[in-house]
């Protein structure tokens, strides 16, 4: 295995000028496209990209407009990981060297419908980097609840009203479910911390076998935020502790950021249309859940 | 066409014997053969059937065996009421038993042949695996395949060490029937 310490860092100054995701039809200010664009710049030319049904495939490949300036393919909704596995197996069988296969799938495509295939891909340790860009709902179909939609979120299938305060379940603990497969490398990230994300993609690129990155990626359309704040809001989520930055490597968890104090959860939520309806009680529920999670992570991971 | 029905218990090798017969008849005997188990999941210990069809020309008939010409019973406890259904009158029924006479009354109208395959298997293999003994006995009783073809099928199908023991048992069983 490559000594990860020796990998040259990729940053804004030295990264390739090539754009691999260009001319796409994503919403203005789309956080998912920041994640896809940056990851592909780290991964480079010799990459096969697989995307299930979802925003990034819907905005990328509408004949004749081909926005992936690299080899890319749309997969079935449940079959992103398995098609990527097949690509990696095909490339190996054909003797192709220095090739990486990457998946970009949304939260629904990853934590819900695509989960079985993802689990199989990790189990087989196929040479695929699976990146889940998490915007916390099915955005491509018009904002419906997924397994990664957090408590309190108003979506079109979890409307907030007098009787039900929007989504009543907490986010599925995707990162630890993935880590429980004893995967070679997994990480969480946020486009609000782009250099951290670049570093993690770079690490995954140089790790043979199955790797996974869960990147928090804002959606101004689904979240009810101004387009220009997409990066800021993804940073706020980390700063208020609702999203954490961590890695799982060699069987060990690592918290990349462990702030003494969190920024205000309420401020983060109230910036977004999807949480506008939340009462102080609802917000308290979110905070308590965050604190439970952090207490456990700090106890077990540090 | 000759149709052979094998009675055994899951794990006793009845289907293997049906295939050995098919191999002997086709690969080593120049005839055509089909061999198949009673379809479905095989559970250890459960009563199971296997079949072999042998003919001089290509066998097209894929329907179930309804009039067996030969029946091999690897374990005599498998002779239960209704056993004789689907057996052609006058067909040869070969039973692994110490005493074939006790079936004369219940299985009237059939050509009954007995062989104590269990003792033979214990003597040669040291284990009560009777499928190849019954196979050798059937070869002798039916003349469907020659002894040479039967022995050749064992060598085709089994690894050398196992084949050595099993050719011995086939020969012994063959002799027992011929000289009986």
């Amino acid at each position: 295995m490559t000594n990860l310490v020796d990998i040259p860092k990729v940053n804004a100054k030295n990264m390739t000028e090539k754009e691999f995701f260009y001319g796409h039809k994503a919403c203005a200010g789309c956080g998912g496209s920041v994640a896809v664009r940056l990851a592909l710049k780290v991964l480079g030319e010799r990459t096969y990209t697989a995307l299930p049904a979802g925003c990034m495939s819907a905005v990328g490949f509408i004949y004749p407009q081909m926005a992936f300036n690299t080899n890319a393919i749309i997969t079935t909704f449940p079959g992103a990981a398995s098609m990527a596995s097949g690509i990696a197996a095909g490339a190996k069988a054909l003797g192709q060297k220095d090739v990486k296969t990457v998946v970009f799938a949304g939260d629904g495509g990853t934590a819900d419908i695509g989960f079985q295939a993802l689990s199989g891909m990790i189990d087989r340790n196929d040479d695929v980097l699976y990146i889940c860009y998490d915007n916390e709902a099915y955005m491509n179909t018009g904002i419906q609840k997924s397994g990664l939609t957090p408590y309190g979120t108003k979506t079109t299938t979890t409307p907030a009203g007098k009787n039900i305060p929007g989504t009543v379940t907490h986010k599925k603990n995707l990162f630890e479910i993935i880590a429980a497969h004893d995967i070679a490398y997994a990480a969480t990230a946020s486009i609000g911390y782009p250099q951290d994300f670049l570093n993690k993609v770079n690490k995954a690129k140089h790790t043979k076998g199955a790797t996974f990155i869960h990147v928090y990626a804002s959606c101004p359309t689904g979240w009810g935020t101004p387009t220009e704040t997409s990066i800021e809001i993804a940073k706020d989520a980390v700063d208020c502790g609702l999203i954490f930055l961590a890695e799982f490597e060699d069987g060990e968890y690592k918290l990349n950021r462990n702030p003494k104090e969190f920024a205000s959860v309420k401020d983060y939520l109230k910036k977004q249309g999807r949480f506008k309806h939340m009462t102080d009680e609802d917000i308290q529920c979110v905070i308590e859940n965050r604190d439970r999670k952090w207490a456990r992570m700090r106890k077990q991971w540090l | 066409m000759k149709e052979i029905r094998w009675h055994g218990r899951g794990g006793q090798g009845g289907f293997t014997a049906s295939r050995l017969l098919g191999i002997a008849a086709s690969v080593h005997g120049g005839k055509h053969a089909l061999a198949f188990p009673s379809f479905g999941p095989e559970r250890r210990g459960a009563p199971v059937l296997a079949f072999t069809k042998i003919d001089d020309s290509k066998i097209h008939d894929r329907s179930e065996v309804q009039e067996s010409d030969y029946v091999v019973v690897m374990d005599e406890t498998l002779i239960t009421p209704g056993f004789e259904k689907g057996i052609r009158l006058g067909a040869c029924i070969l039973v692994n038993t110490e005493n074939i006479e006790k079936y004369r009354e219940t299985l009237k109208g059939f050509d009954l042949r007995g062989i104590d395959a269990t003792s033979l298997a214990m003597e040669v293999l040291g284990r009560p695996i009777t499928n190849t003994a019954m196979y050798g006995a059937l070869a002798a009783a039916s003349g469907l395949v020659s002894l040479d073809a039967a022995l050749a099928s064992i060598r085709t199908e089994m690894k050398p060490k196992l084949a050595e023991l099993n050719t011995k048992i086939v020969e012994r069983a063959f002799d027992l029937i011929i000289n009986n």
Partner: protein
Amino acid sequence: MKTNKIFISGDEAVAQGVRLSRPHVIAAYPITPQTITVERLSEMVEAGEMDGEYMHVESEHSAISATMGASAVGARTFTASSSQGLLYMAEGLHYCSGGRWPVVMMNANRSVALPWSIYGDQRDSLSLLDCGWIQVYVEDAQEALDMIIQAYKIAEHKDVLTPMMVNLDGFILTHTYELVEIPEQKMVDEFLPPFQTPNKMSFEEPKNLGFSSKPDDNTEFKYQQNEAMFKAVDVIREVDQEFAEKFGRKYHDMVEEYRCEDADVVLVALGSVCGTVRVVVDKMRAAGKKVGLLKIRYMRPFPEAEVKDLAQRVQAIGVIDKDISFGYEGTVYTNVNSAISKIDKYVFKSNFVGGLGGRDITKAEIEDMFNHLLDGIEKKSEEKVEFFSLNVETND
């Protein structure tokens, strides 16, 4: 010609055909009665008799996804399934044909739940007739092996680029052992060239695959796909001819007529039951009855020309369906009927639905069908769609 005949099952014959075709990637999930095929393939990979990657996928959906992915980088691929597994692949089957990836699949024809049944009928593949795959049905283990090799050549042909499903009846073929000739690797290599396709991602010529199309273009892509299926008819003929010249076995292209040349009535069937029908035809012919068999080999593309041609020559046609399209009739019958309706002549017709969930189809039953058709041409029986071999009385 040097021959090598071994006594193997239909499942094992398929595995031999796959080995000889040298796929780069095999992805499959076990399901009775297909499992033995993938077990044998795993053993061949383990033993170093094959170079391909064997992927232990976690479902049939992933099996078809993985083969598509591998095909999309230019790899030759194989998968296998049956019944519930095939249905679980259904999304991928449409996807694969639309993507023009010439994946080759073996399907062990098995009943579809509920009630659960692991035994054979053809409802699995026939209910997926419209998913854009070439579908061939074989009659014995030798044909199964030979058709796997042919399937790659047909599916990968530049005018076709369409996936192909080789169907063999569960248990009756998959689990029955018979003498099968194993072709020489060298000859298969000469017959089957390496896989080439424009429809792949490569670093020399990067591509975006599997894109969306707007209403402006979608129909054209579907037209193209349909055209490719029609072109497959010619390719099937060429490949079968070339195969016959090379290996000495000919499978009569789209259909095989058995003793139809002067027949008054003909039974149409798919797969292994054709063998039993042959036996009955011989018996009835010996008794002076002018009966014959039309073995449909390909259900897609459908042998319309062949069925019409036969209908012009005979007075009655019966169709055995090991399937039922609930609320109507057997699927094979619907297709055959559609072809017959295009000729300007009355043909007495009937549909015999049976063999469901593994029930045996007996020679006596087949003889009854022929007699019904013979009566029909003398106006002594009526056209019907019936479930035959029911064990109980019905309300009709």
